[in-house]
């Protein structure tokens, strides 16, 4: 399924950071939504800022408009505030994009576990993210760092426990 662009994507003012405060808020909300859905669609978990400027998300060649670097930083900051983005370095050149927050992932995983009556089972992380059993699940292919955070969220909730195994980490669900 090809990605569907929102109407704003073809609206030239969308690519200019609006000075009017109210207008800007709506604009940024639309940008955050677009960025996240794009990343979700393409299963992108990390973004490089320099690359992002050239990616279709922030660069609409058809109307010859692109978001300035300054504006991209503003959008990223907005995502960070909402908990959907985390900087990997001090220079803010690479970031983790959480189009689904760890808590949300945790919930999904636990639902699958419960649905299949696998409570009290132990899994390795690899089994969860890449095992045959999880094929077709949303969290299949989840990058390890994200998986860990999701399980940590469940752990905080008392629904799971992360354990150390011979060749890595694993988890036990309750």
């Amino acid at each position, binding site marked *: 399924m090809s990605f569907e662009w929102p109407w704003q994507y073809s609206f030239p*003012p969308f690519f200019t950071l609006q000075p009017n405060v109210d207008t800007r808020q709506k604009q940024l909300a639309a940008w955050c939504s677009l960025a996240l859905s794009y990343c979700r669609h393409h299963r992108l978990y990390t973004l490089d800022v320099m690359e992002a400027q050239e990616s279709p998300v922030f660069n609409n060649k058809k109307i010859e408009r692109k978001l300035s670097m300054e504006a991209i930083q503003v959008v990223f900051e907005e995502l960070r505030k909402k908990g959907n983005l985390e900087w990997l370095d001090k220079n803010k050149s690479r970031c983790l994009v959480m189009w689904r927050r760890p808590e949300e992932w945790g919930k999904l995983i636990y639902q699958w576990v419960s649905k299949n009556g696998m409570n009290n089972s132990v899994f390795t992380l690899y089994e969860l993210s890449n095992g045959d059993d999880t094929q077709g699940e949303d969290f299949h292919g989840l990058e390890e760092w994200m998986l860990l955070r999701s399980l940590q969220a469940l752990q905080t909730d008392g629904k799971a426990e992360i354990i150390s195994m011979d060749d890595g980490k694993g988890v036990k669900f309750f």
Partner: protein
Amino acid sequence: MDRFSWSNGLLEINETLVIQQRGVRLYDGDDKSKILYYFTSLCSWFCEQAAGIGKSAKIVIHLHPAAANKEPGPYQNSKYSYIKLSFKEHGQIEFYRRLTEEMTRRRWEEKPVSQTSPVGPQAGRTRAVGIVGIERKIEERRKETDKNISEAFEDLSKLMEKAKEMVEVSRSIANKIKDKQGDISEDETIRFKSYLLSMGIANPVTRETHGSGTHYHLQLAKQLGDMLQAPLELLSPEDLVNACKMFESLKLPLRLRVFDSGVMVVQLQSHSEEEMIASALDSVTDKGSLTAEEFAKLLGLSVLLSKERLLLAEKMGHLCRDDSVEGLRFYPNLF
């Protein structure tokens, strides 16, 4: 040369060494003499005599007749009224220059610092007899003026001082007017303030809050309200703005409008903000998008004014902007 007096070779109190030159032979007229003297009488004029073959360069100095009370000197009588300085070891150019300078400045005629006298230029002179005296007076005055001018201009800070004094004087007068407001008539006050303004000095009285205003501005506002007819006297921009701020209180059909950018316009009262914004939105929606220039052409307004309207509409949230290399364009706010 009977115009010299003996000296002990040391400088007196009011004397300064200007220049020393070795190897100068002194001629009484054309007679050679070997004694060095300094002048007590004044030189009337002098000239250079260029060096020739076998001859050194000379400066010829013509001296005034000595005063009757002259101190005794080497000669009681002389048939010559001039002397010659022969420069055996060069230095005549510099000597000539310094001599010319000293002759121009006439420092010996300046009154000494310790002397207290009520009148400036007059008191310093001790000799003022005959035509020579009159000539000297004229020369003196010219020198004085010259000196003042050159002092003022050489030293720019001194000029600033003088300007400051002027401003202080005007200020103090303005304050006095303010204090004695009741004693001085309104007309005079207004006239005086206009003088101050024409000198470029802001009238301190106008520093009051613009709400209260002054009589001067009220009068001015009324005049402006009469549709700025025949050319008035020149108005300072500050006065114009202050007068315009009073339109409302005077119930005149004009308004002073200040935009966020600081641009101020005078417009008819009937021109309300809502109307401007609505018309801007209509035009933009109609055309899809507009630049300030396009809008100006559409309305027949200046670009500055049309931009202000578009910005106002954007501020109110009716328009949004597209800023790119193609320029600044306004769209209806679809967000």
